[in-house]
């Protein structure tokens, strides 16, 4: 088979974003596991330790970006899975807006929580 039938051609914004967030998450999720299980033991996590990490600008930005991209990737993934199962009509609309709402709430909570962890009060 010499023919190259890559599917990497524009398939819409969500399709592309799902792949871009995936590429980012591969790295940060692996980093997150390494940091909180091997560098620091999960059992030894304290608020002080979390705050120390979150007060480093680079870590703070990484964690917020991690949270927001994971939210998009997860919620969009659920939506795609359900569309793939063949839901349509009202069910599809309900799922869509339900997931958008859940995703927005989680995103807001992640930002608020990150600020609390870093000890920043607005």
């Amino acid at each position, binding site marked *: *088979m010499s*023919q*190259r*039938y*890559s*599917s*990497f051609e524009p398939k819409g914004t969500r399709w592309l974003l799902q*792949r871009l967030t*995936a*590429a980012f*998450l*591969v790295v940060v*999720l*692996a980093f997150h*596991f390494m940091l909180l*299980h*091997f560098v620091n*033991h*999960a*059992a030894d*996590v*304290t*608020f*002080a330790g*979390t*705050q120390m990490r979150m007060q480093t600008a680079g870590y703070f930005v990484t964690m917020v970006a991690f*949270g927001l991209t*994971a*939210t998009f990737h*997860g*919620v969009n*993934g*659920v939506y795609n*899975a359900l569309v793939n*199962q063949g839901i349509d009509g009202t069910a599809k609309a309900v799922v869509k807006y339900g997931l958008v709402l*859940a995703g927005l709430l*989680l995103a807001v*909570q*992640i930002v*608020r*929580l990150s600020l*609390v*962890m870093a000890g920043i009060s607005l």
Partner: protein
Amino acid sequence: MSQSYDRGLVEDFGRWTEFSAGMWAWIFHKFTGWVLVGYLFTHIAVLSTAMSGPEVYTSTLQGLESLLIVRFLEVGLLAVAVFHILNGVRLLLVDLGIGLESQDRSFYASLILTGAIVVASVPTFLAGAV
């Protein structure tokens, strides 16, 4: 021009004994994806105890980590996450047109590598709880 062949419905799970490697990869990727989103919501809820004060956060996390069952669930989560990451990388490569001829082998490689990483991590994950 894309070619396809009729592999039958993956949704028709009763046929699982006839499933090809690609169908298993699809099912595992979906299952691990569901677990990870579920975990993400739960994880943020647990971490949100920080909003009730530093002591609540620390005692909640340490209380959870002191339970053996939680340690085992974390090993399970690691397995799920590592598979989803490795198989996800495989899917990205396939989307880029890389390795189309060796998809079966790369799926088996993802499985074996996941197993090896998980087994190697067990001591660290259980340390202090057993």
